């Protein structure tokens, strides 16, 4: 059953420091009042126009196996192929911060206010990531509230870590994110662009751990897995680095 997931704006709005960090600003760098004002304005604009919505649907490991195979384009050694079979529970999810944000970004850039447009884009990207994090948290709380367990919920998305982006096709067929206004184009890109889809995998922390030395890791610029993995088992990451 597809169920709506509440996403409160206040819970996903990124902080000023978060936005500055995303734009490459070093932590000890002094921030001018103009830059501060730019970030604050972008955050306010986001609060004015964003309309975050999300859905999720529980499914079995076997059902997900079919979705994960997608169009047969996955990397041979995608880490998720070794993770999901060990999951205690899984759920597909889709969320968006809404079309109005993208429209406003385009409008600002088009009217030559690229500074605000770009900063709003950063705020919206972070907010979408935060919303995905919120989904992980809510899924954990709902599914494992009464268990003092080592269960960890992490989201994985098509287009990342060997799960080919064409995997969106089956995910969309199953979850129908169109119901919350997300559409998929021929290149498997979502509109509104500030949307996230994927699978929430709940299982023991260990099942999420993998060594980030796959072929696609060499061209990855985000290395977002490092912090996720570190939160699971820091010392192992340190070993890999050495």
């Amino acid at each position, binding site marked *: 059953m597809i169920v709506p997931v509440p996403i409160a704006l206040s819970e996903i709005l990124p902080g000023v420091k978060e936005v*500055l960090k995303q734009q490459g600003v070093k932590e000890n*760098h002094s921030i001018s009042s103009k*830059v501060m004002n*730019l970030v604050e304005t972008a955050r306010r604009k986001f609060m004015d126009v964003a309309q975050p919505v999300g859905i999720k649907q529980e499914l079995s490991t076997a059902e997900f196996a079919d979705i994960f195979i997608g169009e047969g384009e996955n990397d041979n050694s995608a880490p998720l192929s070794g993770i999901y079979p060990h999951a205690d529970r899984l759920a597909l999810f889709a969320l968006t911060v809404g079309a109005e944000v993208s429209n406003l970004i385009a409008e600002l850039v088009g009217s030559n206010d690229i500074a605000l*447009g*770009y900063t709003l884009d950063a705020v919206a990207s972070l907010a979408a990531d935060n919303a995905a994090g919120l989904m992980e948290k809510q899924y954990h709380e709902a599914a494992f509230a009464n268990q003092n367990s080592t269960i960890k919920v992490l989201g994985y998305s098509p287009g990342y870590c060997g799960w080919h982006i064409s995997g969106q096709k089956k995910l969309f067929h199953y979850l129908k994110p169109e119901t919350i206004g997300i559409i998929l184009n021929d290149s498997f890109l979502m509109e509104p662009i500030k949307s996230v889809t994927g699978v929430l995998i709940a299982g023991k922390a260990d099942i999420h751990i993998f060594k980030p030395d796959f072929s696609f890791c060499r061209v990855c*610029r985000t290395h977002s897995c490092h912090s996720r993995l570190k939160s699971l088992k820091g010392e192992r990451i340190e070993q890999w680095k050495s």
Partner: protein
Amino acid sequence: MEILNQIAEFLEKGEDKSVHDLTEQALKNGVPATQILNQALIAGMDVIGEKFRAHEIFLPDVLLAARAMQAGMELLKPLLTLAEQSGLGKIVIGTVKGDLHDIGKNLVGIMLKGAGFEVIDLGKDVSPEKFVDTAINEKAGIIGMSALLTTTMPVMNNVVELLKQKKLKDQIKVIVGGAPASEEFAAEIGADAYAFDAASAVERVKQL
């Protein structure tokens, strides 16, 4: 000239209103538009570019400086000839067909404009034919393409192939960028350059 230095300094600080007002003042004083463009606006953006590459300033400062430059350019543009507007040259940029991510490409456009290039931005979801036809019609010497996805990268190859078919590969240079692109990929498809980010894009374009 003191007023040009002042404009450049205000531009570096991202003070768009001051840049606008001083540019207006300079024009009233009879300073030629080309001189204001080259010795104040582009000079200021050059400093910004250098500081950005040296990690002395960061993206928000660049964005504010670009906005200040735009404030001055609004006054200068009607006074510049087409040749003067082209400055260092003309470049056609866009995000390739099938790809909707354009914020990185927009930033490259800003940096190139700031460096004195005339930028024709075709937006996102741009077909190979549109890239090539626009470059021909606008007499642009460079095509710059961006892609965020491995699935849309082959379009970059299609543009290079189209230029070869039209026997324009030597006249129109190609630079590629975006998360999945690399030096190796650029070499593989026969592009003339690859840029890792917006700051390096300007340097690479200048070298073409």
